């Protein structure tokens, strides 16, 4: 990952994901403020629609990539000791992958069951 997400590529990735995250977050907040789903059935069918399912998955992946680039920068600024840095980054990466799989599982299950 270090080579793929460093320098110019990381800079572009951070901005591209930022734009998508910003737009989707504003959409989510607007719906929740203006016409939130009335009940469980409405909430569920919102996330079970194909468009919303894909858009939410793209959002989750964007957040995780954005978090990776951001947290990596923070860790590299404050953690100088190499073994500690590698350990922290490995834990962050593992946590992010686990979160991504967890969210994907929920979003796929809601369409199947």
């Amino acid at each position, binding site marked *: 990952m270090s080579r793929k997400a460093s320098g110019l590529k990381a800079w572009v990735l951070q901005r591209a994901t930022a734009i998508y995250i910003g737009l989707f977050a504003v959409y989510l907040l607007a719906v929740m403020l203006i016409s939130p789903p009335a009940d469980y059935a409405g909430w569920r069918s919102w996330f079970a629609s194909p468009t919303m399912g894909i858009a939410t998955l793209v959002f989750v992946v964007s957040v995780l990539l954005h978090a990776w680039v*951001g*947290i990596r920068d*923070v860790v590299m600024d404050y953690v100088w000791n190499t073994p500690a840095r590698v350990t922290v980054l490995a834990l962050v990466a593992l946590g992010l992958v686990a979160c991504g799989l967890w969210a994907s599982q929920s*979003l796929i*299950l809601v369409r199947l069951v």
Partner: protein
Amino acid sequence: MSIIHRITGVLMFLAVPFLIYLLDISLISERGYEEAISVIHSPPGVILLFGLMWGLLHHLLAGIRYLLIDVDLGVDKERARQTAWIVTMAAPVLGLVLTWGLL
């Protein structure tokens, strides 16, 4: 200013598993959905929601400011100072409004 961008970013990173947990239980069953709502409406839930809304707004507004500076908008010192102040002040106020609107 940019240190707040960092802090809010790290805080939201830490909130990610908790938010996925809420999404997960809210989609799995009606009981989980009710539980997620009651967690969000509990006193610690409200505080967390406000913290999240403040963090999101600061991070988003400051992020838009950085993107504009990338394309040479608002670069001069006085303008940059002004927009930094606006973002820092607007985030908690809008965060409070959003929290109130969402509950």
